[in-house]
């Protein structure tokens, strides 16, 4: 570890002042026994296994599908359980507030009346669905499944980068990464007592059934996928298999008399819960996008009448909008009367003239993001952008300020990655997955650590050259 080139002024997950952090020690002891050729073998094995086991996502180019693996770094990211407790507490608090916000914003709108949140921000949000107004959802839970993206700043404090409350993906990679870890490092996991993540499908199905029991004593649960061309199709099939539920596409479902049915060889079978992985705008062509072939005509009205439960609820996009993000700490104070446990990254809203002016003057110190984009698209990183790119973004911001926000560039923490035969620091974030059920919020101890594999990059998204690593929570 002596040659590990930790970066100055950046928090490193493994090293502190050239000393291995306590919670990494056991792993490092085991890891040090492998020489370069053994590590290269492990690296190759991981790549081969991901490909042969079909743990891939498909990229379509010129009408041709290319199977790609989500790059996996063999060195796990390790988190101490005391720190995990803190993260857990912070996420639970945040989700509670966001969930109340969703209930409020689609019902009485106290938060707007009390001027905690400007109404313009809500009504101009493209993901705010007027169709959801006064729709009651079981147990008042909207955010059944969420992935909260966390980063660390130079001082090691955690910040929430993004709330993913619509159809967060990546959980199958969390599960597969763990399987990969015990193949690459046999016996190390049980020896250092890494907490298990494979309970996720059990927790999820338990919640889905609890929701379904509002409708039927023996609820029928299905997973609605956009189909094989979706990049996360592997995840859809994995989750359906691990929960023992049917994987269906829109064309497999039909709505009759506001009831949803699944077509089977033995006739129609009533569906009570839909874990959907289809976006809001495609879910019902009669109400949302008319050209959608991924959804089910009539589904919205069946949902509105309470004949089917859709997980996650429709209209959640208003709560994970990047402009509304800056109000989440206020929401926590307003709804829960508590101080936020997890920090939020300071966010400048472009429709506010002063903040826009400041951003444009300091563009090279900012990350500018489109409010309704994700996956690293529609983003400008000031210190890496060319003058032309900055000029183009400035123009776009002035044309449509509501669609942009800016944040100061955060010095994401680094974690060791095995690249070209040596350990090198690379920037990471963390996406823990939370499940909100009738019994409360549960978070599996781990999550998906995404890593920016390109040297110097801070973009961890898979679509932008990012990869992932296993996340170990240890005592």
């Amino acid at each position, binding site marked *: 570890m002596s040659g590990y080139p930790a970066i100055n002024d950046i928090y490193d997950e493994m090293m502190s002042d050239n000393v291995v952090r306590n919670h990494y020690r056991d792993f490092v002891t085991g890891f040090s026994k492998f020489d370069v050729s053994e590590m290269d073998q492990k690296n190759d094995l991981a790549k081969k296994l991901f490909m042969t086991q079909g743990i891939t996502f498909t990229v379509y180019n010129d009408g041709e599908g290319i199977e790609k693996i989500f790059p996996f770094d063999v060195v796990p990211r390790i988190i101490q359980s005391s720190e995990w407790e803190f993260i857990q507490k912070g996420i639970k608090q945040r989700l509670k507030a966001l969930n109340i916000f969703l209930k409020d914003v689609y019902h009485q709108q106290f938060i707007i009346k009390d001027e905690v949140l400007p109404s313009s921000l809500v009504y101009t949000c493209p993901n705010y669905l007027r169709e959801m107004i006064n729709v009651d959802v079981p147990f008042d839970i909207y955010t059944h499944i969420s992935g909260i993206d966390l980063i660390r700043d130079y001082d090691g404090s955690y910040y929430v980068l993004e709330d993913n409350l619509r159809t967060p993906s990546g959980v199958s990679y969390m599960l597969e990464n763990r399987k990969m870890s015990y193949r690459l490092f*046999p016996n190390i996991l*049980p020896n250092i007592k*890494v907490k298990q993540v494979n309970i996720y499908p059990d927790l999820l199905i338990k919640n889905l059934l609890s929701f379904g029991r509002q409708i039927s004593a023996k609820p029928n649960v299905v997973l609605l996928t956009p189909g094989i061309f979706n990049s996360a199709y592997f995840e859809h099939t994995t989750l359906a298999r691990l*929960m*023992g539920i049917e994987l269906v596409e829109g064309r497999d479902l039909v709505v009759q008399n506001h009831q949803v049915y699944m077509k089977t060889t033995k006739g129609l079978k009533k569906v009570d819960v839909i874990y959907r992985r289809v976006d809001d705008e495609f879910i019902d062509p009669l109400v949302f996008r008319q050209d959608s072939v991924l959804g089910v005509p009539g589904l919205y009205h069946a949902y509105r009448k309470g004949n089917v439960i859709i997980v996650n609820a429709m209209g959640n996009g208003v709560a994970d909008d990047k402009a509304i993000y800056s109000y989440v700490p206020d929401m926590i104070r307003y709804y829960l009367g508590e101080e936020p446990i997890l920090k939020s990254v300071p966010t400048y809203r472009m429709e506010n003239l002063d903040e826009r002016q400041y951003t444009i003057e300091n563009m090279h110190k900012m990350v500018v993001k489109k409010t309704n984009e994700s996956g690293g698209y529609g983003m400008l990183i000031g210190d890496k952008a060319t003058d032309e790119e900055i000029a183009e973004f400035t123009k776009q911001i002035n044309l449509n300020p509501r669609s942009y926000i800016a944040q100061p560039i955060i010095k994401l923490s680094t974690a060791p990655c095995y690249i070209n035969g040596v350990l090198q620091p690379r920037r990471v974030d963390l996406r823990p997955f939370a499940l909100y059920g009738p019994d409360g919020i549960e978070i599996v101890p781990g999550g998906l650590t995404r890593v920016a594999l390109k040297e110097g990059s801070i973009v961890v998204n898979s679509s932008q050259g990012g990869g992932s690593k296993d996340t170990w929570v240890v005592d």
Partner: protein
Amino acid sequence: MERTNFQLKVFHTRYIAYQDGASVESWENFCEENQIEIDNEDYSFGNLISKALFDINNDLSIASNIFRARENARSAQDHINKDVWQCLNDFHHQMKDHFLFNQSRYGDPISVFDLLVKQSMVYYGVIDNYVARDEGYCFLELGKYIERILNSINLIRKQWILYGEDLLDNDYSNWRYFLSSVSGYDFYLRHNLGTMEKERIFYQMIYEPLFPNSITYSLNELDKFSKQLNSGEQGESDETVGFFIGKCIANVQFTRHPRTREEKMLFLARIESDIYEISNIFNHQFFGLVV
């Protein structure tokens, strides 16, 4: 070969349970069960697995199983086809591969399990697709299902001894591994959505006619192949085998689901005894062995 396939799946799952930190079984127990002799108190998992798989001096190892299967096949080459012989021969040579041994001892045992299970599947595929449905095939299948029932009984018995009485235990991970070791986890989930109950698992293992590793399924297959065997007889057909298989099926089908662990053990012992009886009748009737 059935035993080989069964053992490979069980070892594989047990290894994963251990890596997940969910196994409570002692390695001494594992050694005793598989007659593994350990030198220098080396209870490292690599050592145990490599011995369970590759130790030719251990009668219960996978290598010994394959060796015996190959010897049997060699002596009956005129009754089997070339594909079956080739498959067994390949399997045998795989078991002598030092790379695989080292991989299980020092590297990634799951790669070894995957490879061996795959070879086992190739064997089943060859039998299924290329072997004539004659008397020899019937005996192969009869042997397979007798072996499967005995292996299942042992596994169920052990599982209930270890975890069956723990009524307050809400951690079902051990039951998940148990089902995985008989390729029954997906089946269970499909039929018992979101409910993990020991009694339902017991039901699936004993009574479920559509689950290929259940006792009922195997008994039905025994019945089918014994009838097929009898129908090919030139002389007077003998109903003895059919009677004993029917008796065993009736014993399983018309016994009330045993609730307590003791009742379950007695029930399993009775099925086991029936199966040994059926096996003896086959030996006596078709091979003239005195029982």
